[in-house]
């Protein structure tokens, strides 16, 4: 693999780690910043000789306050958000319910409405897609609708 054990072991010593952290100080300083400078999701597909382009942006508020981060939608219509990076959702509403469940920023001091804390199984049922799972060799569904 072209790497020597002793080289990497040496790179893992405290002084070497301090040195590389100093090298990367500018990059590290961005960790506490808001990274998400949103852009539209652009979905493109060619169908019967026609080029279809679907551009999607979301404007979301929670209790009237802007939710200032970016949601994207892929060509199969699933909605993504880098704050919950191992999941996708059938709709932006399902995603925002999970955001409220996940982050303490939205915790309610009195325990809140019980309906807001139900398990989210939208990814299991995928209601926006008719509940039809994609089989291993099945077609890749395209959705042009705004979620």
């Amino acid at each position, binding site marked *: *693999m*072209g*790497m020597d*054990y002793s*080289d*990497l*072991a040496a*790179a*893992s010593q*405290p002084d*070497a*780690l*301090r*040195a*590389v*952290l100093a*090298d990367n*100080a500018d*990059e*590290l*300083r*961005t*960790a*506490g*910043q*808001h*990274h*998400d400078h949103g*852009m539209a*999701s652009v979905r493109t597909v060619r169908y019967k000789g026609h080029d279809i382009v679907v551009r999607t942006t979301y404007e979301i508020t929670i209790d009237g306050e802007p*939710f*200032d981060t*970016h949601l*994207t939608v*892929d060509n199969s219509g*699933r909605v*993504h958000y*880098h*704050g*919950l*990076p*191992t*999941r*996708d959702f*059938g709709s932006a509403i399902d995603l925002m319910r999970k*955001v409220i469940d*996940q*982050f303490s920023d939205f915790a309610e001091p009195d325990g809140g409405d019980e309906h807001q804390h139900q*398990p989210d*199984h939208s*990814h*299991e*049922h*995928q209601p926006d*897609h008719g509940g039809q*799972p*994609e089989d*291993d060799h*099945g077609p*890749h569904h395209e959705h042009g609708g705004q979620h």
Partner: protein
Amino acid sequence: MAAIRHNIVTDAGARDAYVDGVVALKNEFLGTTTADLGIAGPARQVSTYDLFTVWHQLAMMRRTPPSQNDRNAAHSGPVFLPWHRLMLLLFELQLQRALANDEVGLPYWDWAADGDLPADEQLSAPLWSEVGIGGTGGPVADGPFTPDRFRVRIESGPTGALRTTDRGLVRNLAVDVATLPTTAETRVALNQTSYDASPWDRSTRRLRNRLEGWRPAPGPRLHNRVHVWVGGDMGPATSPNDPVFYLNHCNVDRLWESWMVRRGRRYTPPAGAPADLAGHRLNDPLYSLLIRQAITPAQMLDAGTFYSYDRLL
């Protein structure tokens, strides 16, 4: 001597070494503070363990290239497997240093073995016991990572920015999905003949994307499903906050190794692929904050110098 990576459920020595190493790295501070991370408020020391969490979060926020929304420097693209192999290798070297033992290997959690059990038995599997890594809760109240021994000090907020906290570890086992991936699903992934393919994102059905867990839809599958099944701190980009992160990824790495033993140490896209795949091509440097050497996916295809697994699938 190369380390041997063992199953954490069946090897008590591997489990104990892992717990001891994690706790040691959680309590080691090399001088980096939260001010160095651009986090507002009083500066606090950042542990060696938490530096890996920061690295993972920053990789997640780095779109590759910036003009698209899918791939980042470590996920949703071809580099997913080699990038995490590098992260785990460097973490393993830190464990070895902390424990003064270069034979210590990261353990793996064979989650598909648990996924083959009935759903209620998955929750009571040995990993989540007192002699494993503790169970579910907010905070986790049993096992080796209770709040008195293990504090979460950095977390991601809703916008992706890091912030300070000081709390116990949170897990919500089986709340958002009821079951873990199964061995049968894993074998389907390993039957793929190619590593990855255009358009090199979440839509492809090749090995990388199946192991990552975006396909087949609807997900989550395999790796992604494990994150979602564990829940709590395994949800956001700071998921290495939970030590089970490394057990999950070590198993993913074991599965990748199993595939390469059968299919050859092959990787795509090649070095000459278009520039919009920069960061994911065979000879592109992997995004790293914790090592000076530029390390590429090509260098991650054979890790035999560093470690091997006691058992492949």
